[in-house]
């Protein structure tokens, strides 16, 4: 117990954490579990029985694991390689590349799926061109089904792995790599034997996040799976929730989500067992990391990365904008078929759009702030104070992120339909905030915990030993040293919250809509052109928010200096 046990007085900050986690996670989880394990207000295993004996469940489960595993492998490999290239090599045009690699992360997954549909769909730009050139009545490629889902999810989820590994790299002490290099190790050898092992917790954390996110993903399998009748658990649960003519449909959906939660819990347990307890003597050092020259391959690698960015980020974004500029859907692209009409309609004929934008900004800022404060407390309790049962705390934080958002939303709806302690949340904006905090806390916790793990407790111990209170040592030592990790956590939570869909689509009410809901409703209605116009605006908003956050982050150290 290097950090020393917490005193009873220091448990006080845990009270709000317990209140938030209890209200936003435990209580809805209990309601959901009760739904899964009851019928007609009596305990019953009938739902689990019905779900487990349905062969369809097993097919859907296999689909889910297949899609999530391939996505995780692809996104993990892409993210790690790209992070190493950006942080440790003399890749040409690194600043631009860094911006390009972040782009897919800033595009909400369902908009990404729509974008790839515009590119590779049966009548997307590629197939349209092929059919016009060859005269063939049949499209060249198909995007519906598992292949398209894996493609779209990999290309929109690798930034999760990339960002996590990049954050990990920033914490790896360059002195260790320098020592290896000056002892005669080749750049490749130093990367393999020093950098990668030090990065293992970050890579594992990134891949776990990708896997959980892929398994819980709703938008992409909905848009690219439904037409091929290809279901994963998240979309199956959604279909079951909406199928209210089926007896006990909510109970069956709850039972399905218990199944999914169990898998997610298993994945987390494995990751924690293998990587969670390792700590490394690495610290944020002022020195620059050694740059590995790519040598003669520099041009090729640079060209390859640039082509990758253009094809996977630029092309689908261009497709969204071009679709938004189309005058008549189904007519070939040409100057006479371009117009700003769709933007005019979205901005001036749908009054809800402006209100939705304001709601989303407010929700994202509030949710991210609450998440970062909670994440710091949870990480501290877990890794420094090491209170008994802090492992359960992490499970509690991660479960709402692992279950499909639809199910979390359902749990929150059922939990807060009636006022709780006189507090009325249902049909207000605040029920969305509750769900966002529950959902995105895990995203904020990872970078905070990873940064804290890599920060040796010696400094804090020194402060405490010199008589500083826990608060004092937190405020003067821990938080300043973790600043970049905290900011990263804030951005990680705020960006997806800004364009969130899956939760808000079930939680919004008249006047309390989000921008993601507006776009999805338009797409779902089949208003492709209006949906594309709004999607373009959302992407612009998301990019703007990100670069403002980056600017603030970059300005911070200057102010201190």
């Amino acid at each position, binding site marked *: 117990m290097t950090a020393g046990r917490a005193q009873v007085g220091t448990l006080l900050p845990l009270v709000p954490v317990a209140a938030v986690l209890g209200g936003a996670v435990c209580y809805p989880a209990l309601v959901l579990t009760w739904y899964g394990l009851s019928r007609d207000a009596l305990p019953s295993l009938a739902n689990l029985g019905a779900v487990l004996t349905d062969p369809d469940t097993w097919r859907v489960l296999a689909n889910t694991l297949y899609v999530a595993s391939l996505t995780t492998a692809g996104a993990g490999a892409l993210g790690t390689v790209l992070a190493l290239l950006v942080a440790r090599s003399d890749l040409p045009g690194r600043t631009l590349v860094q911006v390009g690699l972040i782009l897919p992360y800033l595009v909400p997954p369902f908009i990404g799926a729509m974008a790839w549909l515009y590119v590779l769909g049966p009548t997307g730009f590629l197939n349209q061109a092929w059919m016009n050139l060859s005269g063939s009545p049949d499209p060249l490629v198909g995007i519906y089904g598992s292949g398209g889902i894996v493609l779209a999810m990999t290309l929109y989820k690798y930034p999760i792995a990339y960002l996590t590994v990049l954050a990990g790299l920033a914490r790896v002490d360059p002195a260790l790599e320098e020592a290896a290099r000056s002892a005669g190790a080749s750049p490749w050898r130093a990367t393999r034997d020093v950098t990668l092992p030090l990065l293992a917790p970050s890579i594992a954390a990134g891949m776990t996040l990708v896997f959980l996110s892929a398994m819980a993903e709703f938008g992409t399998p909905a848009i690219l799976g439904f037409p091929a009748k290809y279901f994963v658990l998240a979309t199956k649960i959604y279909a079951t929730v909406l199928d209210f003519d089926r007896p006990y449909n909510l109970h069956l959906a709850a039972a399905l989500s218990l199944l999914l939660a169990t898998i997610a819990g298993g994945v987390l347990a494995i990751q924690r067992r293998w990587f969670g307890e390792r700590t490394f003597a690495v610290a944020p050092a002022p020195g620059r990391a050694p740059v590995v020259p790519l040598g003669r391959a520099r041009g090729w690698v640079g060209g390859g990365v640039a082509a990758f960015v253009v094809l996977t980020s630029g092309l689908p974004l261009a497709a969204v904008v071009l679709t938004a500029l189309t005058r008549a*859907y189904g007519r070939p692209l040409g100057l006479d078929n371009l117009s700003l009409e769709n933007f005019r309609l979205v901005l001036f004929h749908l009054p809800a759009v402006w209100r939705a934008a304001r709601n989303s900004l407010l929700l994202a800022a509030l949710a991210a702030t609450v998440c970062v404060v909670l994440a710091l407390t949870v990480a501290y309790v877990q890794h420094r104070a090491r209170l008994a049962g802090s492992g359960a705390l992490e499970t509690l934080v991660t479960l709402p992120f692992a279950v499909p958002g639809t199910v979390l939303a359902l749990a929150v709806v059922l939990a807060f339909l009636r006022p709780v302690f006189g507090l009325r949340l249902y049909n207000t904006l605040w029920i969305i905030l509750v769900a966002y905090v529950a959902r995105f806390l895990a995203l904020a916790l990872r970078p905070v915990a990873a940064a804290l793990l890599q920060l040796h407790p010696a400094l804090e111990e020194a402060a405490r030993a010199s008589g500083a209170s826990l608060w004092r040592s937190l405020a003067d030592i821990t938080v300043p040293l973790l600043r970049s990790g905290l900011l990263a956590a804030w951005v990680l939570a705020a960006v997806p919250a800004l364009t969130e869909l899956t939760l808000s689509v079930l939680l919004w009410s008249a006047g309390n809509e989000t921008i993601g809901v507006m776009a999805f409703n338009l797409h779902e209605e089949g208003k492709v052109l209006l949906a594309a116009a709004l999607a373009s605006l959302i992407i612009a908003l998301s990019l703007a928010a990100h670069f403002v956050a980056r600017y603030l982050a970059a300005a911070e150290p200057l102010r201190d200096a």
Partner: protein
Amino acid sequence: MGQRRSRRPGCLLTLLLVSAGPAFAQGPVTLYTSESQDKVNEMKTDFEKRHPGVALNIYRSGTQVVIGKLQAEMQAGAIQADLVWMADIEFFNQLARKNLLRPYTPLEADRVPAKFRYEGGRYHEVRLIFNTVGFNTLRVKERPASWNDLADPRYKGKVGMASPFYSGAAFSTLGTLVPHPGFGWGFFARLRDNAVVVEQSNGTVAQKLATGEFQVASVVDFFLRDMKAKGSPVDHVWPREGAILIPTPVGILYGARNAAGAQAFLRYLYSPDGQRLFVQQGYLPVLPGIDGPKGLPPEKLEILPTDEAYIAAHREELKARYRELFESK
């Protein structure tokens, strides 16, 4: 719900406002609907212009989602909606049976055929939409003429329709064609054999018809009239067996916090102004004497009879057999 609220003094105020009549309609009115987002927003703008002081709040989503939300609110005993407007007449039957709908017949509705004012004015048909056969004008040379053309092997894999699990219109179509002697489940089996593609919403079906992903489709008419007017290569035919009327009723809830405002909106929908805006948007009017869209005289169109009682009695069976036919098993 209603009882719960009636204990509050606020309800007295509402009652006073209601009894004081239309002149006092003001404040926010909340509408839950599955109507087209852009169309219903045009209605909102026009209505608010004519009724200053009334603000229409809209919760717009797919029929199933709206019903799910209403059911959740009913469970909690706090319905937020003043008005409900969507493509699931059976749900309105249920609401009426539970005595949740407030009867109201605006003066303007006197001229509307009685069959469009359901259960003594508890809910109302305010304009007519139909499910018809649509086609892509660039890829289909010979205009289809019958529902059976959807099963033509020429279009194999290029036939679209909406899912009855998400779309009220698709469910009405299923419930009308299945008991019909000329169609039945055999018709849907032939559609399945023709590799029909099932989408969630009619709007999506219409868009995919425009891109040519679908060549023919079972789809709601006004989407296609709307897109055709904007220049998309789509059109629809009135099938020779008749089109299917898709009931999309409007009703005022007993729990309405702003009943006066809700009634004002219903009156507006029935007014010649409202009816003309409907026609402009591509719908058929319900008020006699208002001209329909070009080439579609409302009284001369063939309509396939829909047996609502049959649909109500066989709701679960229809969905179960449909699932068996079309879903991954």
